[in-house]
C-alpha cells in the first residue's frame, strides 16, 4: 500500500521513537498550509482588484499581508527552535530547511499580491489597456502554479512539484510578449503611467510564478533529497 502520500505519514515512520518531534513537524506543516491558504487568498483578491476593478477588495490586502507575515515569523522561529532542541535526523533536517526556504517564497508571493493591489488602485482611473486580458491569463497561470505547488506540498508529490517548471515557461512567454507590446507602444496620448504600472504588474506576476516554482523545487527536495 502506498499510503505515504502525506507529510505526516512520511515523517512519522522514521520518528516513531520521537513522537514529540513528529508532532512538532506536523504542526509546522499545518501552519505552512494555513499560510499557503492565506497567500492563495490574497493572490485571488489582488487578481480581482486588478482585473475586475474591484477596489473594495484592495483594502483587505494589507490586513491579510500582516497575518501572512505573522505566520512567516512564527514558522521560521519554530523551525530554528526544533533544529536546536531536537537535533533532528538527516531527513528531518532536510524537511525543516526546505520549510524555512519555502515560507520565505510564500511570504514573497504575499508581498507581491499586495503590490498588485496597490497597482490596481493606481491604475483604476485610466482606461483599461488592450493587453489586460493577456495579463489576466498570465495571472491565472501564476495562481494555478501556486495552487499546484501547495498541492504538491500537501501530497509530497514529486512529479507534481516538477511539473510546475513547465507552467513557469508559459508565464515567462506571456511576460515576454506583453513586455514587447508595452515597450513598443507608439503614439501614447496622455500619461504613460498606465503602461508603467502594467509593466510593474507583469513583473510582479513573473516573480510570483518564479517563487511558486521555487516552492515546487523545495518540495521535490524534501522527497528526493
Amino acid at each position, binding site marked *: 500500500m502506498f*499510503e505515504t*502520500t*502525506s*507529510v*505526516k505519514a512520511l515523517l512519522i515512520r522514521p520518528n516513531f521513537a520521537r513522537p514529540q518531534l513528529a*508532532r512538532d513537524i*506536523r*504542526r509546522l*506543516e*499545518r501552519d505552512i*498550509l*494555513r499560510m*499557503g*491558504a*492565506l497567500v*492563495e*487568498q490574497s493572490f*485571488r483578491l489582488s487578481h480581482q482588484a486588478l482585473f475586475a476593478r474591484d*477596489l*473594495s477588495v484592495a*483594502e483587505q490586502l494589507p*490586513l491579510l499581508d*500582516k497575518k501572512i507575515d505573522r505566520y512567516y515569523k512564527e514558522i521560521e522561529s519554530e523551525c530554528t527552535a526544533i533544529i536546536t532542541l531536537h537535533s533532528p535526523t538527516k531527513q528531518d533536517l532536510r524537511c525543516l530547511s526546505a520549510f524555512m526556504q519555502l515560507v520565505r517564497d510564500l511570504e514573497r508571493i504575499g508581498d507581491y499580491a499586495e503590490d498588485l493591489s496597490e497597482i490596481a488602485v493606481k491604475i483604476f482611473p485610466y482606461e483599461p489597456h488592450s493587453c489586460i486580458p493577456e495579463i489576466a*491569463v498570465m495571472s*491565472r*497561470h501564476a*495562481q*494555478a502554479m501556486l*495552487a*499546484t505547488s*501547495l*498541492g504538491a506540498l*500537501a*501530497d509530497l508529490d514529486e512529479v507534481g512539484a516538477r511539473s510546475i517548471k513547465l*507552467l513557469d515557461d*508559459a508565464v515567462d512567454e506571456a511576460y515576454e510578449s506583453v513586455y514587447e507590446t508595452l515597450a513598443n507602444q507608439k503614439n501614447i496620448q496622455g500619461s504613460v503611467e498606465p503602461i508603467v504600472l502594467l509593466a510593474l504588474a507583469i513583473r510582479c506576476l513573473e516573480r510570483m510564478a518564479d517563487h511558486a516554482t521555487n516552492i515546487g523545487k523545495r518540495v521535490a527536495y524534501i522527497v528526493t533529497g
Partner: protein
Amino acid sequence: MLLLGIFLGLGLSICLSICYTIQFNRYFGRENFSKRNILAHFAVLPLVGWRHKFAKVKKQQQYLKQQLQNYQNLLEQAPLGYLQVDEENQLLWCNQQARQMLSLEKWQPGQVRLLLEVVRSYELDRLIEKTRDRSSSQEREWVFHPSCENAEAMVEQKSVVLRATGLPLPQGQVGVFLENRQQLFEMSQARDRAFSDLAHELRTPLTSIRLVVETLQDRVNPPIARWINRLLTEVDRLIDLVQSWLDLSRLESNPTTQLNYQPLEIKALINSVWESLEPIAQRQVVQLNFTDVDDAWINADKSRLYQVFFNLLHNSIKYSPPCGVIRVEVNVNVPLQNKNKSSPENGPLLAIDIIDAGHGFAQEDLPHIFQRFYRGDKARSRSIKGEGNSNSLDGSGLGLAIVHQILAAHGGNITAMNHPETGGAWLQIHLPQVIAKSVTQDYI
C-alpha cells in the same frame, strides 16, 4: 502425580473462570454484583450463565453495530455536508455532500490526513480551531473558492457561499456541518436587483405624473383641488419611497465608493438635525437632552449621517409620549477586547446612544427591525393613526434599513434594544474613524 495434575488443572481453570467473570461483569458495568454473589452464581451455573450472557452481549453488540451503521448511512446521504476532524485537525470522515462542496476528490474513506492537505480553506480551519478553543458551537459564512490547478479551467470555476457550523466533540474532535448557501445568496441578489430595476423604471413615470398633477393643481376648481392636493402628496410619497430604495441598493452594491468622507463634528450635526425636526417636536412637546463628552469629531459622509440622525430622531419623536425627553449621549470608546491587535478597525469608536421614553420595540420585532419593509404591529397601527400626513419616510418601512446600510458602509454598526429605565427604544450606534483632538484643531 496424575491426581495432582488433575487438581492443579481444575484449580487453575476455576481461577481463570472467576477472573474472566469479574472482567466480564466489569465490562458491562454491572457493578451491583457483590463478590460473594459472583462466586455463588458461578459455583452453581458457571457454563449456562456464561453462554446466556454471551449471547445477550452479542445480540446487543449487533444491534448497536446496526444502529451505528444506520446513522452513518443517514449522515452519508444527508442533504447537508458533514465532516469530522481529530484534535490535530486531521480529517477522519466526511460525507458525500461535503466531498462535493469542498471538491475533496483526493480524499478516500479510511485515509487520515490533515484537513488543510485536502482542502486549503483558511476560514474552515479557523472555524474548527475556534470551536475547539471555546468548546462551544460556532458558525461562519464565507465564500469558498475551490483551489484550481489549471489556468484555463479557472475562469469557469465557481465560488460557493458556504455556511459552516462547528460542534465540539469529545477528545478534541470537531464535527462540522456545511451548508451550501450559494442558491440563497444568488436568489437574494436577484431579488434586490429586480427591485432596484423596478424602482429605476418607476422613477421617470412618477416624475412626469407629478408634473402633470402640478399643472392640474392651478387649473381646477376648489372641490376637485382637494383631491388633486391629496394626489400630489401621495405621488410625493411614492417618489420618496422609490428614491430611498434606489439609495439603499446603491449603498449596498457599492458601500465605499458612495461615501464622501469629510471631518465633521457630531454635536453640530445632531443639532442641525434637531432644528429641522423642531416643528414636529414642538407639536408633540418633546425635548432633546444632549450629553457630549467633548466635541467629538469624526470622518464620515455628512449628508448620509444627517439622514441617519434624521430618521432616528424622527422615529424617536413619533414614538415619544407628550412632554417626553429624548436622550442623546455621545462617548468615545476604546475597544477593550482587541487591544493587543493594532489593526485599523480597532481604533477608538464613537458611541452614540439615542434613548426615548416611548413604549419601545416588541421583543419579537427586535431581530428584524433593520430589514426592509419590516413593520412591527405597533408601527403599523401607529401609521394609521398618523394619517400618513407627514412627509419623507413616514412608515415606508425603509427608514431603519437605510440607517443600517449607511452605518455599515461607514464600517460602523447599530443595535436596537429597549432601555431598562425609560422602557423606550434604545438605539446604539458605533462609528469608527474618530479624529484625534490635535488633528481636529487643524481643521477648525
